[in-house]
């Protein structure tokens, strides 16, 4: 395969991992509803349901980062080193999740159960919003300059530098980035409600509670999502020419969706699936499998958004400080040899997905009941 084909392939894999990650953020969405859950049994069932899946989301985040590093190291180097504070806050918001489930009810945990629930809430809220903000900078630009010649500058050998003194925090004050952040948060909360409706059983109070949260969060999400689409599709994108020069193009992301109509079709199917799940759940209360429709729908929409971000000669990380420093899949990737090696490795991804599906099919064959939460000897 050619380098260009492998760059395209690896952007697709990054898009798949990104889409999976956003789907799996239902764990974070569920966590945001935990702290204010007054019903003790509902809280126990919720935390034990989410607690069995948190590592899957966490691992997907780590693999997403690792795959990005391996396939597009210049992005990793430029964004992580430059938007230092944004990535540090994302990092901390996920670190505090990793031990909270295991520690929250253990005797001797020093800080008490509510403290760990607060950490899970922080992870749920800030993790989603900040991840959305970080991805927002990929659409709407970031303040960096890349000068590879600096490598031989003894006094300042760093090739990527950030021009904003806020080192990533400036994105938190950017309306479109923040809008995407809150869209991700409410998507996660909606998905969390759908997931809990499907995974918990035997307690009418719990079911009714998550139906209400599902309806409320779906409404807020739809408003945010439509606003975000309006902002995104009317925004300029950046296109690179064969000689590497970069120029702004009006409505670039919208035009990408038209140019790559197959992704446009997937995008529409995804949106329709999410809408179907929401309306089916509202008008047919007995229907609890909406997570599968919103899940597949979310996956397709995010996959399409990543596609219009990276394909069709689009700069997936535009620089607002120096437009020609903008990163695209051609100028930021690993070499042909490394991408080839990694592509052989990627052939095992379906095997990984199959065993994950098989294991969770066995583990989730029966929904979690109040009796199980009372009897299990390994509880969160």
């Amino acid at each position, binding site marked *: 395969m050619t380098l260009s084909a492998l760059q395209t392939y690896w952007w697709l894999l990054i898009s798949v991992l990104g889409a999976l990650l956003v789907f799996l953020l239902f764990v974070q969405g569920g966590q945001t509803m935990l702290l204010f859950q007054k019903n003790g049994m509902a809280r126990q069932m919720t935390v034990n349901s989410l607690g069995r899946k948190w590592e899957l989301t966490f691992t997907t985040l*780590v693999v997403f980062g690792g795959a990005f590093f*391996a396939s597009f190291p210049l992005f990793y180097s430029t964004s992580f*080193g430059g938007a230092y504070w944004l990535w*540090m806050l994302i990092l901390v918001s996920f670190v505090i999740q990793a031990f909270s489930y295991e520690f929250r009810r253990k005797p001797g*945990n*020093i800080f008490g159960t509510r403290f760990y629930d607060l950490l899970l809430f922080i992870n749920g809220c800030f993790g989603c919003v900040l991840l959305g903000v970080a991805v927002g900078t990929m659409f709407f630009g970031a303040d960096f300059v890349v000068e590879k010649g600096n490598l031989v500058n003894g006094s300042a*050998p760093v090739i990527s530098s950030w021009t904003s003194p806020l080192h990533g925090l400036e994105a938190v004050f950017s309306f479109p980035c923040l809008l995407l952040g809150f869209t991700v948060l409410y998507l996660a909360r909606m998905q969390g409600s759908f997931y809990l409706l499907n995974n918990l059983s035997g307690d009418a109070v719990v079911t009714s509670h998550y139906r209400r949260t599902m309806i409320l969060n779906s409404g807020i999400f739809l408003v945010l999502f439509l606003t975000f689409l309006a902002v995104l599709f009317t925004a300029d994108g950046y296109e690179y020419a064969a000689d590497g020069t970069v120029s702004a193009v009006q409505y670039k992301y919208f035009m990408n969706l038209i140019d790559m109509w197959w992704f446009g079709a997937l995008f529409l199917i995804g949106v329709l699936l999410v809408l179907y799940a929401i309306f089916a759940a509202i008008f047919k209360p007995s229907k609890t499998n909406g997570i599968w429709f919103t899940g597949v729908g979310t996956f397709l929409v995010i996959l399409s958004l990543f596609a219009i971000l990276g394909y069709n000669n689009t700069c997936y990380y535009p620089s607002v400080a120096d437009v020609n420093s903008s990163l695209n899949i051609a100028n930021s990737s690993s070499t042909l040899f490394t991408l080839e090696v990694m592509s052989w490795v990627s052939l095992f991804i379906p095997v990984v997905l199959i065993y994950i599906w098989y294991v969770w099919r066995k583990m989730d064959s029966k929904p979690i009941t109040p009796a199980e939460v009372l009897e299990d000897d390994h509880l969160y």
Partner: protein
Amino acid sequence: MNDLMSVVDWSRAQFALTAMVHWLFVPLTIGLSLIVALMETMYYRTKLEKWKKLTKFWMLLFGINFACGVATGIILEFEFGTNWSNYSWFVGDIFGAPLAIEGIFAFFMESTFIAVMFFGWNKVSKGFHLAATWLTAFGVVLSALWILVANAWMQYPAGMEFDPDQMRNVMVNFGDVVFSPVAMNKFFHTVFSGWTLGGVFVVGVSCFMLFRKSNREAAMMSIKLGGWVGLIGLILTMYTGDGSAVQVSRYQPMKLAAMEGLYDGSVGQDLVGFGVLNPSKSLDNTEDPMVFSIDIPYGLSILANHDANSFVPGINDLINGYTIVDGNGETVTDLSYNEKIQLGKKAQEALAVYQAATERGDEKAREEALETLRANYQYFGYGYFSDPSQGVPPVGLTFYSFRVMVMGGGYLLLFFIVALFCVYKKQTWLDKRWVHWIGILSIPVVWMVSEAGWIVAEVGRQPWVIQDLMPARAAISAIQASSVQITFWMFVVIFLGLVIADISILCREISKASKKEILK
């Protein structure tokens, strides 16, 4: 420039802090996952409930520890980008691949099957559960393999070449990266040391049970299994440690010199068995480096080269360069650091010339520059130094850590032999309070030994991030030192809370178990 140096030091401190805290949890995960898998195998084969109950007890402690390892591990992955962004570009083409493979193969395996381990007892068959436990243990080892491949590559860069057009190193042979002798040795050394630590932990906690006069049968079963895992792990750690010493001598001689506090090397060099460094010794004076020492004749030559007549260079030899005829009549030679610095600068200048020639389309100048660059690239990293002394690692920390590791290892060998002797031949000794105390106090000892090993490996290789090619000062991100200071202290607070809560929970669970019969 001062800010740059400050960023380097704070970034180093932050990464070292994270790595050391991460390493508090990882070896126990490696060791306990194997021990738990062996216990469950016993349950599967014998169908005896007591093995299941024992498995569940140790699995509980494994789970508490595992979560902390996950929490601290992700920080290291992020910090490669946030704090060492130049490094991420310079070698990302090579270094990123093992990290991604670790995620795809190992992390998903661990995170999927660990859920079956904890929540699947009543949901899947016994065979499936046992397979999940072994796959979790396998995933842990697989994870160690890939991250140690990445770490070993930094100490011994193989399978790569520099591409001046892209201003970075690129991978040319994946097999050389994965199966480099340093990577293989480091992998086995680390995994076996995890078995050792897991063994000490199990024996030590079992001694606590005996101290509380409870769970005698569970303690005996655990001491037998933990003792064997630990003993085998330790013997293999020592064997691979010997291989590691030879590799350090060959690829990182300055690290070996620092490990020994050796300034002036010789043929048939003695090994410092025990000693105290002279704190006023520096490169600028001729004072004796040791206040006192007990030496093992020819020890270092044998350790480093498996040859009593070989020459082992000291710090001064490496700084000043040497040409020596060793005890076998062979001439060994090396350039001085000043010469290497000049050649490194020559390589960097050639790279700048290459870039300029490429921009103006001067093919002849480009070819000449490329030739000069390739001829001197092995010294590229030295070009960032202004003084040879910048190439010397902290001697004291490396020297004492090495001694803690080796002497601690010797003590642990005795510990396992005695523990196994007691449990098989003299169980009455295991009723004595002082024996219990030795078992309990050996738990912090094995952690000190384990951490000391990593200090030798990582502090000893300073100032290099990639041996000979990139020093830490060229690997950093362009951020303010104050930013890194703030995140450093933020992590101090998080880690303190995490470690205190982790130890507290472990102690409470162990104490709770000691108040009942866990096999009933």
